[in-house]
């Protein structure tokens, strides 16, 4: 399997989940991520796992809640409208401090929106993936191979910090085929008995665990949340990630994530060829946001340009991260329209990259 082969992003995510030790998948079909379910429906039974097509997205996420509570690695996937349905369950999972992986292959919104690629769920995934004080880890890969590599990382960090992890893709990444290579390795086993909090069999050797997100005493709930936020601080301190190119002398720094970062990279390459000092920062983790990496990359920048497939969402985090020390402009296409590298290049020039 070390051979390079072509796979759709969705299928690659599914295969990577199995190799990361995901034993249970609960899903409900929706374009453009249905290939994840289709692939796992065939593959999961062959490795002794569970594939279950639930009656709805709400059911699927609650099955994840139960399964995660038993300490078994599990996953669900959907696309934008389906993720909205799952948010109640995600909040419960966060409130119960359980690890799981959730994939969002974004499409246009709001409402049923469209089925073409979009990045309009940034605010939802980073700021409000359900009610209450909580965060999820959010990864934004930009290629099919990177999606594969991200899955194991997402499961590992979710387990380590006992929190949900989201892989934020979009229709472009889910539907496209690119070469992928899986490392020769045995399927990882996630050992529930090594999770002291798991509600699994213990042969009466310990007190039984209770998994719950209800705390009626305000002080007790506050303590629980504060403990959770101490864990978040550790995540913020150690697990931010960004890829920076040509930033050392860059006067205009473009910030873009996921598939938009590929388009922006083409534009920045073209700008460099024309002698414009442009650079690019691609946040790989969206929560925690790579604040230090961005500031470092923008050290010599005169202006910053955020490019997204939305009306402008990550741009807020870019401004916050830079503490408004640089002018931040925005270029976006939305509704399923994919920006062209030429549009981005034109914007870079308009921002003064030509003088």
């Amino acid at each position, binding site marked *: 399997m070390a051979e390079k082969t*072509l796979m759709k992003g969705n299928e690659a995510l599914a295969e990577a989940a199995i190799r990361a030790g995901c034993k249970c998948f609960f899903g409900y079909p929706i374009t453009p991520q249905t290939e994840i379910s289709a692939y796992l429906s065939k593959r999961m039974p062959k490795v002794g796992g569970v594939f279950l097509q639930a009656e709805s997205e709400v059911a699927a996420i609650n099955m994840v809640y139960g399964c995660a509570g038993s300490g078994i690695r599990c996953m669900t996937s959907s696309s934008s409208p389906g993720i909205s349905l799952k948010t109640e369950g995600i909040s419960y999972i966060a409130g119960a401090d359980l690890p799981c992986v959730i994939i969002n292959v974004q499409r246009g919104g709001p409402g049923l929106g469209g089925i*073409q690629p979009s990045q309009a769920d940034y605010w939802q995934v980073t700021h409000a993936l359900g009610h209450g004080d909580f965060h999820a880890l959010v990864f934004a890969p930009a290629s099919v191979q990177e999606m594969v590599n991200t899955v194991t990382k997402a499961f590992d960090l979710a387990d380590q910090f006992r929190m949900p992890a989201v892989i934020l893709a979009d*229709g*472009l990444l889910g539907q496209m*085929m*690119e070469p992928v290579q899986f490392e020769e390795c045995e399927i990882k086993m996630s050992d529930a008995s090594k999770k002291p909090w798991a509600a699994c069999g213990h042969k009466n050797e310990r007190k039984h665990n209770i998994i719950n997100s209800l705390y009626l005493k305000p002080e007790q709930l506050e303590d629980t949340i504060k403990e959770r936020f101490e864990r978040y601080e550790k995540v913020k301190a150690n697990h931010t990630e960004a890829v920076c190119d040509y930033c050392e002398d860059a006067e205009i720094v473009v910030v873009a994530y996921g598939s938009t970062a590929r388009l922006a990279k083409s534009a920045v390459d073209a700008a460099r060829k024309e002698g414009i000092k442009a650079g690019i920062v691609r946040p790989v983790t969206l929560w925690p946001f790579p604040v230090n990496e961005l500031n470092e990359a923008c050290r010599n920048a005169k202006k910053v340009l955020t490019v997204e497939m939305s009306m402008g969402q990550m741009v807020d985090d870019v401004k916050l991260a830079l503490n408004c020390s640089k002018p931040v402009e925005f270029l976006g296409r939305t509704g399923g329209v994919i920006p062209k590298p030429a549009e981005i290049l034109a914007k870079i020039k308009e921002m003064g990259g030509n003088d």
Partner: protein
Amino acid sequence: MTNEILLAGFGGQGILFMGKMLAYFGLYEDKQVSWLPSYGPEMRGGTCNCSVCISDDPIGSPLVDEPNTLIVMNTPSYDKFINTVVPGGIALIDSTLVDGKCDRTDINVFYVPATALANENNMKGMANIILLGKLLKETNITSMETVRKAMEKVIPPKKAHLIETNIKAIELGMAQ
């Protein structure tokens, strides 16, 4: 240099399959490749298209809207895409199914009656492969050896008996 290829026709003509073959040609030539299907509602019985990029450098946008190479297998796709081909590019047209004649002089246009050829030669449903053969002849995109390797990879084992017919269809296309 990125070869941006756009393939278009009706669902069922093997447009996505043709794209997958091309992507494997690139992969086996150690190039960077991407393959992106149209996945909108037009797939259901309507037109279908597929973008393939083959490049020496990492691929930015996998979406091709100004192709170097266009292969069209029906009139709606011909009308929609013929003017998007970049000057100096090439267009391959299944002339059994497309009536139009292109008056552009800045691109190389090849008319191959691929569907008729497939029917006459007991290769029903392989008009796409015949066109691929023609592309091989006109662009030297890859070697016959790589074509066979890609065929063996892309054609599922239970249809392995069709590999030789597919190779013949490639050769028929190359003879046009």
